[in-house]
Every structure is written in structure tokens, then in C-alpha cells.
């Protein structure tokens, strides 16, 4: 007897004892004679007034539900019950009631009654949420708590992961930009961030465990630190945190082999599907297998890895990839899709992994082959020993390109040998979209030019039939059954649309209403992730996130429409568009807590009062994450330059160095492009340039702004001085740098470095260890494919002797024709040094007048370099701009240089460069690479030594 058979036997024995106890003796108790599909026959001894049939419930703490009660003949006999859906006999029991007794089922109900948590004021006292049979569990007010778990025969709940979880007054967020964040939302208007586990960009699968523990299923190892060992090839990690103290504390980590694909928490066991290389395949085939691993998390602080099974789906002559998973309390089902070259189409294989052992043990069972491929989790269900699968095939071999959707039922009472029961094909020539199992019904949405909503009667698994077909404009991507109603979200003419159907009579469904909630161009995560679609039937409310108002290079997308959480009134027969809670960055989830709406995007948690649903009022906006592009450590503070995630704004913010995510003060720099920034002498210098938007007049040069901030009183940021000028135009802000030839002289160096070049990692280290010289290990410049014949470098000089009154002095320009590049600029002793290299002949050097804004007049005081034929074509040349001279900038050079500037020493008298080695005649050796040390006397560069260097 195997383990599963043994468990069934135990269950059957337990049922008999229960029946015996209620009836007085085993011999005189009603007994189930047979349970075949939906028909249950019960033999009743003489003396019983009625018989009650009960089934096990999937809901924890309420294990038995009454299916029906029927009267019995005084002399005994047989009675028959008709189930609404197929259930195995082991999940049924009968109770008899003799004359004069209380009905036996009166004594089998719930015995513990806890007060409600949250006290949601939107729900009237005593109101209970509906629960669609086999569909959404809407109790608790959140429509996405558990989805299509199926497996009504088990007691363990099946939970899908999400990016957030509200548990009482604690909100757990798996924030991709920070990690696990724990918030106290007892007062929704004043939520408090209790702590963060730094683990950004690691995944989006969060589960709540018992005892204040949270599990993260991460797609990467949990490592952060020096010389961390012990990863053992693991690609993922289960990280378990204790959140009882508020701030999350890691109590255990478990490695996960392979790439994490999907997971489910069933009871206290976590099942994870991963993709691993097929070790038996040719190494060049890149073939992979799916593994399923069970974790026992019943003691969260001491989790146990149970075992792993590897799916061995046949892959000959096919390209196989992961499709979808679904779980019941008994099975973890994995659909793998194989592209078959022989038929030119894709087919799915669904493998059954037995997870009925609650300790996390997984056992590989049989598999079924489908005639099409499974697109998502909503197309699989196991219930009562029957597997149903919805697949889609393209039928490419048919010249008329007739695609079709197919429903298959399999008897998996013997999971090692699934047996086909029946199937149904529908939607000829159409693409399948949203589907949903709901008890004996199956909702299927297909689409070609219109959206037929199909309702399939699957009560006879051997012969499923189409109950009805309803043609509807657009198509639905997600379906939420609500008993007699069906709510869907989809697309209609490119607009996100919510639809409401009357499905009380499956043979005559009706579209009650369709409500577009966005304009074209906007979108909603609810269209591809049902967890973003919140349906609160008791509150008569639907919430879904809307992303809109984005601006692209091609222009605005739905510019007049704000992103936010859209409110929709859900009536019995109507949908009504209400207000939208504005939420700048793409909102992702929303729910109702303590009378307020909590809406989460990755960068903030927003609280809103929706008493007036037409005009929701934001009562709090807690920032959870932001962008840091530059950071300086000054005293005990950090000065950040960044902004909001996904936004174009620029913000200076100050935090302590111990709590970098806790902003103490901030200052908005607006939306202008950040060109360069630097800290020197207790001041922060920021150069920005006005943004020119598509369609605006590009003939008018955008103005630039130099802003200076006093950082000597941190955390206060004191604005010292601002200079706005339209005489500085920066064409390529990404390559701009600030250099300081001397105190009080800020030079903004910008221009094209001449293309992408991998440059070697070389730098100078002085006796104290500080690096001095050019930054030398990076990409330099931006591509020149759009303008390949010129390389330009500009030097914008600002006098910042007075931080309060900065002055723009002027611009110097070096421009070459032909292919070439500049080094980084290096400053020393009042001078700025830079080298250039230009290939070929016919180049031109010129100091150009300021051309971008003729009204501003010429700003270059220095005469142009004579536009003669470049004597340094094909060679390196050094230019030196001297800002120390009292009469203004002087431009020296070009001077022949041995290579590209690396750095300076001895006040610019020793120059380090990188380039060719040279022979005794001074001719470069092709293919050579050396570092040069040279002496510069102001007129010529004299090579001192050359160090061979491969320059990786």
C-alpha cells in the first residue's frame, strides 16, 4: 500500500466512525453505497427520519459542509443525493437523524468566534462577502487573496504569492527597489515604515507565514558582503524573516537550485518550480528541465527542504519551455509547452506532482498530453480527482489558419495513469483569452473580431457541452465569477474596460454593461495580473490601477489622463465610473483597510479617503523608494542627487549616513536635465539644462543653470546662488564633467568624446593613495553614427569666487573634423589639459564663436585657432587651457603628445599618457601598447619612459 492509498483508507475509516457515532452503532448507521460522478447513493437502516450528506470544505477551521438533507423512509432503504460537482467518496460522509433527535449536522459547525480584524467601516455590520464557488475568495474584502485553488477535497489552503500582503495592521511589501518593507497601517492616514530588509531587485514573490514570519522567494542568492560563500550554485533563495519586532530580521535562508519559475504555498508547505539545465542533453542544446521542490515551513524559523523531483517531459524533436503551474491541495500541476517540428505547432504536457503530504514532500506522478498549449494558470484545475485543462492550438498546417480552443477532462483518481474522460472544442478560428473555472461551469473568452463569452457546462466530465455563447465587443483578459454575476477586465477599442455579465442562467447569459475606464494609450496591470484587479462586492467597489499620462519621444500618451487607482461602483446590474485616486508612479495594488484605500506603487504607499468616490482625497503619501544618482558623504550625512523613480524630477536630499533611506531634508531641482554636479569647499555645484520637448522650437537654444548650495549646515540645504544663462548650450550632458583648474574657477567640460571606446584601467596614485588624474576605465563619449565627421569639446568657464553671485565668463571650443576622440580633461595649477587624436588628413581646428544663440553675441575672447591643415592628423596632440593668466584664458597647443592623457604630476610638468610604443625614429609600432611618462616644458613633451601594457 503506497502512502496515498494509506491516507485514503484512513479517511474512509474516520468517516465511518463519525457516522457510527452519530447513529449509535456502525451496523445501524447510514452508509454511502456509491459515489459516481455527481450521484451519491446512501443506504439507510430502519428508524431514521432524515439523512444529511456532508463534504469536506477547503476552508480551514470549517472542515465539513452540508451538501443536502433528505427524508428517509421509516422502514429504511436507499436515498440518492445529486452533487453540484464531482467529489471523491473519501471527501463525503453521511449523518443520520433518528426521530426526536436534533439534526446531527447541528452539532458539527464552527465552535470558535473571533472578532473581526480591521473593522472595515465600508462594510455594514453583519455583512458577509459572497464567495463564488470555486472562484475568488472575497472574504476579507480583497479579491486576490486566493485564486482558483480547486481541490475542494483538501483542507490546506492554496495561496499564490504577491508583492504585498496585508495582515491585520501590518503591511508587508516586497518592493523591487528596496526589498522587504514592513509598515504599520493601524492608522491608514499615518502609515509608518517599521523597517526594511535591503534586498532589492530580487523578486516579487512574498508569502505570509505563521507567527509573524514572512517568506520571500527570491530569484537570486541572498548574499551581500565580502567573500560570501555557500551559494553552492543556487540561483534562488527562500528568505524567511521574523517581523515581530517591526524591522524584518532574517532567521533562515534556503537555497533554490535553478531559475525560479513559479510557486505556491499550500498549507504550511511551499512548492517551487525551477528551471535547471538538462544534464543528460547535449551541452550545446540548452535543453532544460523543470524541477519541483517542497519546503516544509511549518516551523518558519527552522524550515526544511524536503525533496525535489525532476520532470522528465519527452523533448525529442521539440523545443520545450515552461508554460504555467496550478495547484490544488493534492497536486502541483506543471504545464510545459513543446514546439513540435513535425506538426509545426505547440503542444502542452501537464505533469502531476503529488503534494498531498502536508510536510512538503513531493512525489512525481503521471502526465497528460494535450492537443494544444496551455497559456496560463487559469487554464488548469484539479478538483475531486479530475483534471481539467484548457488549451489552444493554431493549426498552422491548415491553410485556412483555423485556430481553436479545447477543454479536456481527465480522471486522475489514479494519478500515475490519468485517463481521458471527455473534451470539447470551441472558438473555431479565434484566439483564446481569459478563462475561468467556476464549479461545474467554465467561462471561456475567445476573440477574433468580437469577444464571444462561452459558458461550458462541465457537470458531465465525459461530455462537456456549450451552454451558451454570447457575443461581446472587445475581449476580456481576466474573469472574476461572483455567483450570478461575472465581472471581467479587458480591452475594448484599445481602452481598458470593465464588463459585468448576468450569468444566473448559464444558457442565457447577458451583458449588463461595459465600462471603459481609460482613454486609448493608457493601460492597467490588471490586464495581465489579476492580483491588480480588486473586486469588493460587499463594498460595491472595483479598483484597478491605471497607468497613463506618459510622455515619449513621439509625443504624449493620454496626456490629460492621470495615473492612479480607478474607482468603479459595482452594482447588481450596473457599473459606474467614479473618481481616480492620483498616483504618480505606476500604481500596482489597492485595497480597503480601516475605512481608507491603501494603494501601493513601488515608490510610495498612498492612503485615500473615498467617502466621496467621485472625489477621492489623498490623506497620505508615504515615499518608499527613490532614485539616487550621486552621493557624497559629508560629516555624518549623505547628500543625494536623484529623484522619484520613473520621474524626470531632480531632487537633492539629505539623510544620515546610518539611515540612507530616511530623508531628513530635500530640495527640488525641477525637471531640467542634470548636466553635472560636484562638491567642493563645502558647496554643492549643480549644472542643469532646460529640457526641450518634442514639438517645441528647437531653434531656440535651451538655457543652462548653475546652482550653488551651501552644505556647511547639514542637514539644511541652503541655496547660495543661481546663475541662469542662455549662452551655454550642452548637446551631450551625459559626457559632461566639472573640473577645477583653481579655486573659484569652475570649468564645465562637455562635448563629444568621439564614440564608444574601451579604455584601459590606469590611474595615478600619489603618496597618500588618492587618485589624481583622468577617470580611465569606462566608456568614453557617445556614438558618432549620427554625425561622424566632427569631434567637439567645449569648456564653459564660471567664476564662482562668490557663491552668491556666480558669473559666466565664456566658452572655449576645440573642434576637429574627421574621426577622433578626446581624453578626459585634467586640471592642475590653473590649467586644464586634454589630448585629442584625429585620424586622416584634412582636419580643421577652430575656436568657434558661440553659435547657438546669436542674440547672446560672441562670448569667446580667444581668437580662433588658425583653421589650417592639421599637422597632427593621425597623431595625439595636447591642448592646455590656462585660466590663471590675468588677462583671461590662453589656449596653448596643439603639442605633439605620445598618447592619450592619463594624468598629471608635478603641477603638470610630468604627463602620463597611453598609446603606441615608438621606435628610434619616433614612429609608432603597430599593435604596441604602452604607458608613457613624459616631461612637459610648456612647449614640448619629452618622453621619459615607456611601460609595456596590454591594456585589457
Amino acid at each position, binding site marked *: 500500500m503506497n502512502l496515498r492509498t494509506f491516507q485514503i483508507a484512513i479517511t474512509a475509516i474516520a468517516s465511518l466512525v463519525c457516522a457510527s457515532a452519530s447513529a449509535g452503532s456502525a451496523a445501524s448507521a447510514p452508509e454511502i453505497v456509491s459515489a459516481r460522478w455527481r450521484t451519491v447513493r446512501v443506504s439507510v437502516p430502519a428508524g431514521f427520519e432524515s439523512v444529511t450528506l456532508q463534504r469536506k470544505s477547503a476552508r480551514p477551521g470549517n472542515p465539513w459542509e452540508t451538501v443536502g438533507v433528505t427524508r428517509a423512509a421509516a422502514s429504511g432503504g436507499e436515498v440518492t443525493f445529486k452533487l453540484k460537482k464531482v467529489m471523491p467518496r473519501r471527501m463525503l460522509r453521511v449523518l443520520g437523524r433518528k426521530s426526536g433527535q436534533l439534526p446531527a449536522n447541528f452539532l458539527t459547525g464552527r465552535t470558535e468566534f473571533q472578532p473581526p480584524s480591521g473593522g472595515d467601516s465600508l462594510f455594514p455590520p453583519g455583512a458577509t462577502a459572497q464567495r463564488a464557488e470555486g472562484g475568488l475568495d472575497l472574504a476579507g474584502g480583497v479579491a486576490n487573496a486566493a485564486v482558483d485553488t480547486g481541490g475542494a477535497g483538501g483542507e490546506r489552503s492554496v495561496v499564490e504569492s504577491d508583492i504585498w500582503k496585508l495582515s491585520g495592521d501590518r503591511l508587508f511589501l516586497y518592493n523591487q*527597489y528596496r526589498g522587504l518593507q514592513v509598515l504599520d497601517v493601524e492608522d491608514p492616514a499615518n502609515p509608518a515604515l517599521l523597517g526594511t530588509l535591503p534586498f*532589492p531587485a530580487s523578486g516579487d514573490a512574498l508569502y505570509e507565514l505563521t507567527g509573524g514570519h514572512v517568506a520571500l522567494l527570491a530569484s537570486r*542568492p541572498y548574499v551581500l558582503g565580502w567573500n560570501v560563500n555557500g551559494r553552492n550554485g543556487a540561483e534562488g533563495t527562500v528568505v524567511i524573516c521574523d517581523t515581530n519586532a517591526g524591522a524584518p530580521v532574517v532567521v533562515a535562508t534556503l537555497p533554490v537550485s535553478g531559475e525560479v519559475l513559479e510557486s505556491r504555498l499550500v498549507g504550511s508547505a511551499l512548492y517551487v518550480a525551477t528551471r535547471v539545465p538538462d544534464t543528460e542533453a547535449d551541452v550545446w542544446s540548452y535543453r532544460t528541465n523543470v524541477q519541483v521542490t517542497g519546503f516544509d515551513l511549518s516551523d518558519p524559523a527552522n524550515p526544511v527542504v524536503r525533496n525535489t523531483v525532476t520532470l522528465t517531459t519527452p523533448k525529442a524533436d521539440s523545443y520545450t519551455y515552461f508554460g504555467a503551474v496550478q495547484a490544488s491541495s493534492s497536486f502541483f500541476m506543471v504545464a510545459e509547452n513543446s514546439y513540435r517540428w513535425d506538426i509545426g505547432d505547440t503542444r502542452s504536457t501537464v505533469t502531476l506532482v503529488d503534494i498531498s503530504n502536508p510536510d512538503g514532500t513531493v512525489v512525481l506522478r503521471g502526465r497528460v498530453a494535450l492537443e494544444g498549449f496551455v497559456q496560463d494558470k487559469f487554464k488548469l484545475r484539479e478538483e475531486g480527482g479530475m483534471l481539467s485543462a484548457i488549451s489552444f492550438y493554431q493549426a498552422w498546417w491548415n491553410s485556412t489558419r483555423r485556430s481553436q480552443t479545447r477543454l479536456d477532462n481527465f480522471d486522475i483518481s489514479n494519478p500515475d495513469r490519468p485517463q481521458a474522460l471527455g473534451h470539447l472544442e470551441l472558438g473555431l478560428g479565434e484566439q483564446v483569452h481569459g478563462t475561468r473555472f467556476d464549479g461545474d461551469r467554465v467561462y471561456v473568452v475567445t476573440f477574433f473580431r468580437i469577444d464571444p463569452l462561452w459558458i461550458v457546462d462541465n457537470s458531465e466530465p465525459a461530455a462537456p457541452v456549450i451552454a451558451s455563447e454570447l457575443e461581446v465587443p472587445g475581449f476580456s483578459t481576466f474573469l472574476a465569477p461572483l455567483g450570478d454575476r461575472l465581472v471581467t477586465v479587458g480591452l475594448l477599442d484599445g481602452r481598458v474596460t470593465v464588463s459585468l455579465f448576468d450569468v444566473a442562467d448559464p444558457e442565457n447569459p447577458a451583458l449588463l454593461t461595459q465600462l471603459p475606464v481609460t482613454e486609448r494609450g493608457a493601460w492597467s496591470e490588471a490586464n495581465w495580473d489579476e492580483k491588480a484587479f480588486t473586486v469588493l462586492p460587499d463594498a460595491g467597489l472595483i479598483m484597478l490601477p491605471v497607468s497613463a499620462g506618459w510622455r515619449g519621444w513621439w509625443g504624449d500618451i493620454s496626456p490629460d489622463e492621470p495615473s492612479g487607482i480607478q474607482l468603479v461602483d459595482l452594482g447588481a446590474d450596473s457599473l459606474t465610473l467614479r473618481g481616480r485616486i492620483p498616483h504618480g508612479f505606476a500604481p500596482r495594488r489597492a485595497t480597503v483597510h480601516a475605512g481608507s484605500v491603501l494603494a501601493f506603487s513601488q515608490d510610495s504607499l498612498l492612503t485615500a479617503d473615498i467617502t466621496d468616490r467621485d472625489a477621492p482625497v489623498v490623506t497620505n503619501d508615504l515615499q518608499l523608494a527613490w532614485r*539616487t*544618482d550621486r552621493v557624497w558623504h559629508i560629516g555624518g550625512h549623505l547628500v543625494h542627487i*536623484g529623484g522619484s523613480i520613473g520621474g524626470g524630477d531632480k531632487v537633492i536630499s539629505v539623510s544620515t549616513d546610518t539611515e540612507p533611506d530616511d530623508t531628513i531634508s530635500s530640495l527640488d531641482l525641477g525637471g531640467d536635465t542634470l548636466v553635472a554636479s560636484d562638491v567642493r569647499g563645502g558647496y554643492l555645484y549643480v549644472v542643469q539644462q532646460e529640457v526641450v520637448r518634442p514639438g517645441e522650437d528647437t531653434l531656440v537654444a535651451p538655457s543652462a543653470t548653475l546652482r550653488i548650495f551651501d552644505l556647511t549646515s547639514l542637514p539644511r540645504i541652503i541655496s547660495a546662488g543661481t546663475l541662469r544663462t542662455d549662452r551655454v548650450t550642452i548637446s551631450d550632458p551625459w559626457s559632461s564633467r566639472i573640473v577645477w583648474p583653481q579655486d573659484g574657477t569652475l570649468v564645465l567640460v562637455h562635448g563629444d568624446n568621439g564614440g564608444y571606446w574601451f579604455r584601459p584601467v590606469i590611474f595615478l*596614485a600619489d603618496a597618500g593613495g588618492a587618485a589624481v588624474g583622468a577617470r580611465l*576605465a*569606462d566608456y568614453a563619449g557617445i556614438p558618432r553614427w549620427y554625425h561622424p565627421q566632427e569631434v567637439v569639446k567645449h569648456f564653459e568657464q564660471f567664476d564662482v569666487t562668490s557663491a552668491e553671485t556666480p558669473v559666466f565668463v565664456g566658452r572655449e571650443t576645440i573642434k576637429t573634423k574627421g574621426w577622433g576622440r578626446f581624453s578626459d580633461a585634467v586640471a592642475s595649477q590653473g590649467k586644464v589639459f586634454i589630448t585629442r587624436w584625429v585620424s586622416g588628413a584634412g582636419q580643421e581646428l577652430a575656436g568657434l564663436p558661440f553659435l547657438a544663440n546669436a542674440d547672446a553675441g560672441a562670448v569667446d575672447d580667444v581668437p580662433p585657432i588658425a583653421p589650417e591643415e592639421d599637422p597632427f592628423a593621425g597623431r595625439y596632440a595636447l591642448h592646455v587651457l590656462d585660466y590663471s593668466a590675468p588677462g583671461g584664458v590662453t589656449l596653448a597647443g596643439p603639442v605633439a603628445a605620445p598618447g592619450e592623457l592619463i594624468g598629471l604630476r608635478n603641477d603638470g610638468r610630468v604627463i602620463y599618457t597611453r598609446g603606441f610604443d615608438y621606435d628610434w625614429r619616433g614612429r609608432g609600432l603597430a599593435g604596441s601598447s604602452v604607458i608613457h*611618462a613624459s616631461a612637459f616644458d610648456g612647449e614640448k613633451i619629452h618622453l621619459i619612459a615607456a611601460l609595456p601594457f596590454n591594456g585589457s
Partner: protein
Amino acid sequence: MDKLFAFDWRKTSDEKNQYANFAALWRLEDDGKFRLLDEEKFDGYNARAFGDVLLAQMYDGYGSALAGLDFSNPAELESLGIYSLGGWLWADPTHADGTPADGIWFPLGNYGVLKVELPK
């Protein structure tokens, strides 16, 4: 005179036909010649010095990482090993700030700030 770091890809001295990345510390002597002070296997890019410690970005087989090199004793370069970030977080030393004593803070863009404390 000056010290100069150069990172080289070349054959190792102890293994034939084996190549590795090295960090080499040279000094320009008064006689006009470069003198090698020490070298150490070291892999990375975007290198930058923070005091006497060199930090460079690298890939450690799992994702982005930092390599560290202590050159407080020029005659004996010491590898600090690899600081693993465990994923694709780009800790670019170019825009980082700090000291070996206080720690180094790296801007991570949308992912905030990472503080790296150097091993004692």
C-alpha cells in the same frame, strides 16, 4: 617619484598558457625608469581609489560585484577579495563617496544607496 597603477592581462608566472588580470603598481624613478613595486591578481573595471583601497566593478559568476585591493603597503598589494551584490545592482565606484575608515556609499539609481564597509 610617482606611483602608477596599471591593470594588465597577461600570462601568469607560475602557470604556462594561463592568463589572468593583474593590478600592478609601478613607480617612476628618478633615473627615468619604471620600477615594479608589486603586483596582484585583480579583475575589474571602473576602478577607483578610496584612500589606500582600490575598488573596481566585476562579475562574480552570479551578478555584479566589487573587487577590492589594499595598496597601503606599495611593496605588498593585498587583495580584499570580492564583495558580492548577488544580482544585477550596479555599484559604480565613479559616483561613490567615502573612505576606507567610514565606509563607501554607492548610488544604485532606483535601488537607493549601498554602503560597503571594508574588511578590517
